[in-house]
């Protein structure tokens, strides 16, 4: 079956969406990510959508679902690289993505994940690393 590749970097999962996904492919990605978060005890999920020319309500819902699922599994999700035209269109479409953190690029996204995890450690929440 066709799949979007997921990379693992230390305790983070990285996804770069490079194709125009049909709906089933998006659902498969959602399931694969959830499974890998558990299998690798991942703490961060970084999704690079800089190649995506649009985000419609289906993809928006997928991103929200991934963030919600990751949250339950004690991982932080950051979506990076949203194109300005996509962001403008999302607002007009009326799509909000609760729980989805965003950053401009992969570097900023990784820093955001690290900072969020560091804050949790200091607050004494979340799993201990290991």
């Amino acid at each position, binding site marked *: 079956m066709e799949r979007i590749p997921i990379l693992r970097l230390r305790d983070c999962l990285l996804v770069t969406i490079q194709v*125009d996904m049909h709906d089933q492919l998006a659902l498969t990605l959602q399931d694969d990510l959830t499974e890998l978060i558990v299998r690798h005890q991942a703490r961060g999920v970084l999704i690079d959508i800089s190649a995506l020319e649009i985000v*419609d309500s289906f993809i928006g819902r997928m991103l929200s679902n991934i963030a919600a699922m990751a949250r339950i599994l004690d991982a932080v999700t950051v979506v990076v690289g949203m194109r300005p035209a996509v962001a403008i269109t999302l607002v007009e479409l009326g799509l909000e993505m609760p729980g989805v953190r965003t950053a401009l690029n992969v570097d900023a996204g990784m820093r955001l994940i690290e900072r969020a995890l560091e804050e949790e450690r200091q607050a004494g929440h979340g799993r201990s690393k290991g």
Partner: protein
Amino acid sequence: MVVLKAESLTIATQEDVVRVRQTTRAWAAEIGFSLVNQTKLVTAASELARNTMLYGGGGTVLLESINDSIRAGLRMTFEDEGPGIADIETALTDGYTTGGGLGLGLSGSKRLVDEFNIWSEPGRGTRITILRWR
């Protein structure tokens, strides 16, 4: 109003929905829409094509590159012979869905275009025409 070019696409599968997005993008670029307006058109087309496939049981979309002496535009007509929509006003409400979606396809795509016309009759089908001027 002059139709400069027209093409009809079948919408039966998820891959067809992808093809509608890609064709819409190519046409919008060719007509000379800005990047933001191309994105709005493709997003609206994606929402309506998915509805045609999912709720309408498949159908067609007609793309038309149009001109009205002062401006150019893209018109798209999505048509199916599915169950139709009993209460159009409710279906056009943000968040209303019968399919577990976000309920933003109709209301949202309406906001993304200049003209939005919907005809639907229970048991006969649904036809939605959108138009955006460049």
